């Protein structure tokens, strides 16, 4: 088995795939990339058992074979090379010899047979989504997902496909994001919960990409195929919470405000907030929004006033400034609307402008109760 490949081309692909590999694997074989060579087509795979990603590379070769190459060693070596052709030759003594313009390097390899096989999807349903749309959906929602091992369903993003559109939801029980696209739809209704890790990988690869992504899914697995790359992952098992039920229907108090002003005020004031609750208080009366925070333990205090347009009763509500900051950061509107009902009910943050046709985004945040 022998092939010649461009060093930067290989590195680029391996770096993407390397994201799948865990830092400490119980199964040592998972520290490797699987190289499967079939003449001029090299398929490289990486896996953590939950997620398997593979990419097809064009190489110069006329042989065949399958070997597992130590990932870290290979990546570290490749990083140091300027662009040049590299030759890989499998030797008899279980090593693979890599020749560059600078010299020769030998890496011990394992038999490709040892590498776990990726799951096959039986009778999958499928949908096609543009890469950038998927990446946007992921990046708008994923920050709101949780890390609670006791509620694994909330540690992922809920994909809800129907003939009318696609909806992506993430929540950690404190904040919730619902991102919908009405301009893309699926041939039949389906729901599944995607774990965070593969989504982060997809987000990184697909951002700004105009290629179509084929999403195939059944009850337990999902497969994303685009260009020469394929990602298969296990879905999170369980029932996603009924998120529609927690979106308050009647919100008589509506605040519209410049997003970046609001964001920078919250950021500044939050420096003075309590270090565990990160609570900032919003006091709204007339057309004035008063943002304040206080850390009683250290006697730190801050207060800012912003003009806004407001409809509703004067009210006072507390929020975790981190949640507000994250949410405001993830919107790219100039103006945002915050709808509220009571100081113990969720606030609904929506962008006023800056949305694409068919795009809809709703963010919910539960308050921090004020104890005065």
């Amino acid at each position, binding site marked *: 088995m022998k092939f010649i490949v461009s060093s930067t081309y290989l590195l680029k692909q391996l770096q993407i795939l390397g994201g799948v590999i865990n830092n400490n694997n119980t199964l040592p074989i998972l520290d490797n990339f699987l190289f499967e060579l079939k003449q001029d087509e090299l398929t490289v795979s990486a896996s953590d058992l939950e997620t398997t990603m593979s990419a097809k590379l064009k190489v110069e070769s006329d042989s065949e074979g399958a070997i597992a190459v130590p990932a870290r060693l290979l990546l570290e070596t490749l990083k140091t090379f300027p662009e040049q052709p590299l030759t890989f030759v499998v030797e008899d003594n279980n090593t693979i010899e890599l020749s560059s313009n600078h010299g020769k390097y030998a890496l011990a390899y394992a038999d490709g047979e040892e590498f776990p096989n990726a799951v096959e999807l039986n009778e999958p349903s499928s949908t096609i989504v543009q890469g950038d749309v998927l990446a946007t959906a992921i990046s708008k929602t994923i920050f709101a997902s949780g890390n609670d091992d006791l509620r694994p369903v909330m540690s992922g993003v809920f994909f809800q496909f129907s003939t009318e559109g696609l909806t992506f939801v993430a*929540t950690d*029980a*404190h904040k*919730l994001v619902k991102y919908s696209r009405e301009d893309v739809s699926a041939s039949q209704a389906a729901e599944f919960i995607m774990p965070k890790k593969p989504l982060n990988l997809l987000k990184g690869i697909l951002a700004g990409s105009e290629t179509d992504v084929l999403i195939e899914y059944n009850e337990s697995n999902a497969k994303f195929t685009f260009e020469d790359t394929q990602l298969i992952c296990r879905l999170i098992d369980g029932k996603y*919470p*009924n*998120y529609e039920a*927690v979106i308050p229907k009647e919100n008589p108090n509506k605040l519209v405000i410049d997003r970046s002003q609001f964001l920078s005020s919250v950021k500044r004031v939050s420096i003075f907030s*309590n270090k565990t*609750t990160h*609570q900032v208080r919003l006091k709204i009366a007339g057309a004035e929004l008063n943002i304040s925070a206080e850390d*009683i333990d250290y006697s730190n205090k801050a207060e800012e006033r912003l003009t806004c347009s407001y409809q509703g009763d004067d*009210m*006072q509500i*507390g929020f*975790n400034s981190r949640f507000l900051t994250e949410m405001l950061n993830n919107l790219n509107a100039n103006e945002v609307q915050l709808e509220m009902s*009571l*100081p*113990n009910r*969720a606030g609904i943050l929506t962008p006023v402008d800056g949305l694409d046709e068919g795009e809809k985004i709703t963010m*919910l945040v*539960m*308050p*921090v*109760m*004020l*104890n*005065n």
Partner: protein
Amino acid sequence: MDAFYASVEQLDNPDLRGKPIAVGGNEERGVVAAASYEARKFGVRSAMSSMVAKRNCPELIFVKPRFDRYIEISNQIREIFLEYTNLVEPLSLDEAYLDVTENKKGNPSATMIAQEIRQKIKEKTGLNASAGISLNKFIAKVASDINKPNGQKTVPPEEVEEFLEKLEIRKFHGVGKVTAEKMFQLGIFKGIQLKQKSEEFLTEHFGKSGSHYYNVVRGVHTSEVKPNRIRKSLGAERTFNENISSEIFMLERLENIAEEIERRLKKSKVAGKTVTLKIKYSDFTLHTRSKTLPYFIANKEVILDTAKELLYQEKMKNSVRLLGISLSNLNTDKNVKETHKKEIAMQLKFEF
């Protein structure tokens, strides 16, 4: 103070003097908050329904209560108390316990102090007061009723035992109509019979209060005079002019009550966790429903929202004559206060 609200009204309005009057209530509905001594002769008592009061005493004049005025006088009286000691535990607007063991005047005689205080109250407000003097709060309270109105009674330590033994069970502070009836059933009519019962016996029949009775009848009551009694709950309620059967009208009333509570909460700067909804049906049966929130609230909207939830929790069994909301589990609670300082704010979650 003797017939406090009624005496104040008679003091301020000479036309009412010497006449049977009732503060609170009206001809049709409500209860008597206080009755003048003239009215008491006819059997008008406080907490009696207006209709019964009117029947007992057709001449009865109903007067609207003026709480601001009562509070004003109450404060004047309190000032007098504070001239003697800081250990003043108010029981209501017109009653207080004073611990004069060590007093600012250095007067060793509690009896004389009581005399002086009553004198001063008369001079300053024109109202009569009664006093009871003894070695603990319980006996002092009971004694204050003995020579009412405008009198005082001292029970010195050596007479305590005899005093309590001869005391009618009905006169024991904390024994009302129902408990007295129960005591009678058990053959307890006076202190002496109560004293003969074992603590186990009393606990068995009266629960926690049983051991209280067992102790007080022996002259043992260790409760101190607490000058800063902490509030445990705060509430407001309304009896309606007409019974209401529709929840929609109740909501309107609840909103008023919640508003009132918010006002009171603000005034005393407290917040609470438990909201209790009190419902009195037209047949006078009383029901309460309560909900404890994981955080302190002091805001009208949230109180109302929780009360609403309680209201709709179950269908009304009958038309309703009274609705009340009260807030307990207050942040004045001592043990709460320590932890409270840390969890000054509470991050809420979606109810999945």
